[in-house]
């Protein structure tokens, strides 16, 4: 392995800064702008400022800012992992990058089939963005995934993809799929079609938000209990808040955050590949190539 040049090290340091600085920026912004909380308050994202726009104003909220933090940090991470990538070097970061790519590619191939192998980066994007958004709670930031708008955006994109791949079998075939098993079922099929992205969005958003809600409630309850049981002096300090919220955080922030990301990615794969009419698509392709030949 060749010696790392000072230039290589400098670029490395810059890339690490690119990962760390956005998160630090988020924390500083939080400290600077968050008013001291009074009692238990479960609310949505804080709005920094609002851009007037037609139809509906654009509020720039914590969820937007934190999403961008994740985007920039992920970009830095990708650049860092692939910095100095070469055929013969054997660095840990290269192994890690290879592992990510191979695992995701294999997962996509296994769940969606050979035709959808190109979906690897998209599934990795969902996994990364969702997991890191949820994990923002670990540094005390507002998780963008507990904002319905953020997750709804992803779900709508997935819905567009599902419909796009369903239409590959021909528009007539797509229309006919609504009239199954009998045309009478058309409204129900339509509802179930729309329910797909809605359920995906609500599942993800609800899980992360409920984690925050339960954590807040438990913390408040523990404060109340310690105030009641430990007397007027020691009760001022919420001793019971030591330990129990950490276990809850382990579940709601770490486990649930990663699990929901995985579930969202899994559902995306299943819906997109499940809706794709492979046989119909093959028939159409054959017919077209025959037409071209004649």
């Amino acid at each position, binding site marked *: 392995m060749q010696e790392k040049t000072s230039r290589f090290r400098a670029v490395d340091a810059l890339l690490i800064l690119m990962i760390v600085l956005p998160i630090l920026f988020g924390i500083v912004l939080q400290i600077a702008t968050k008013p001291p909380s009074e009692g238990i308050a*479960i*609310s*949505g*994202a*804080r*709005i920094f400022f609002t851009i007037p*726009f037609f*139809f*509906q*104003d*654009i*509020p720039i*909220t914590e*969820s*937007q800012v934190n*999403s*961008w933090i*994740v*985007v920039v940090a*992920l*970009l830095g991470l*990708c*650049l860092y*992992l*692939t910095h100095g*990538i*070469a*055929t013969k070097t054997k660095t840990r970061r*290269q192994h890690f*990058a*290879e592992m*990510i*790519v191979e695992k995701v590619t294999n997962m996509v191939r296994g769940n969606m089939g050979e035709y959808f192998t190109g979906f*690897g*980066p*998209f599934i*990795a*994007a*969902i996994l*990364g*963005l969702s997991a890191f958004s949820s994990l923002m709670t670990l540094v005390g930031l507002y998780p*963008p995934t507990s*904002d*319905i*708008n*953020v*997750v*709804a*955006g*992803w779900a*709508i*994109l997935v819905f567009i993809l599902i419909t796009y791949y369903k239409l590959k079998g021909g528009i007539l075939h797509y229309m006919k799929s609504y009239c199954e098993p009998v045309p009478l079922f058309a409204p129900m099929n339509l509802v179930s079609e729309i329910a797909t992205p809605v359920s995906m969005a609500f599942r993800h958003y609800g899980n992360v*938000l409920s984690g925050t809600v339960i954590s807040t409630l438990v913390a408040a309850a523990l404060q109340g209990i310690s105030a009641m049981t430990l007397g007027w002096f020691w009760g001022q300090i919420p001793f019971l808040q030591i330990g129990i919220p950490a276990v809850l955080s382990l579940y709601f922030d770490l486990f649930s955050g990663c699990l929901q990301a995985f579930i969202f990615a899994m559902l995306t794969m299943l819906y997109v590949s499940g809706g794709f009419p492979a046989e119909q698509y093959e028939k159409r392709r054959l017919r077209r190539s025959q037409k071209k030949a004649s």
Partner: protein
Amino acid sequence: MTLEVISVNIWQILISLINLLLIFLILKKVLFKRVKKMLADRQAALDKQYADADEAKRNALENQVAWEEKIQSAHSEADRIMKEANVNAMQRSDAILAETKERADAMMRQAEAEAKLERKKATAAMQHEIVEVSTQLSEKMLGREIRTEDHRALIDSFIDEIGEDNDANG
């Protein structure tokens, strides 16, 4: 100022959608493309090494076959030379033996001839002696001179008879 817990805003949804697309592009262009290219390069290098190794193996096998052929021909050449040398040596020894035998035969013949001559000489000498002795004996006994020529003929015939008997016996 905060949003409601559930509040839907189209632009926020759109921003989030664009964020996901952005991450998708970043992962595709930065992570997946580079890693896949590197993996393809590695595979190509590996394939090349395998091809090289196969080539080297084939060359080695060819060399081995050539060497084996050479060794085989060297063996047969050595065999041929040995056989030739054997034949030559046999021929020469035969010739030497024949010559020796001839010479020995010649020597034997000469010796035989010499022996015969000696015998003849000895026989002649003895005849002469006997004749002399008998003549003198007869002269003394008879007291007169006998004609030597007559006696000689007589005695010769006698001795010849004896000689013939001797020859027949001997």
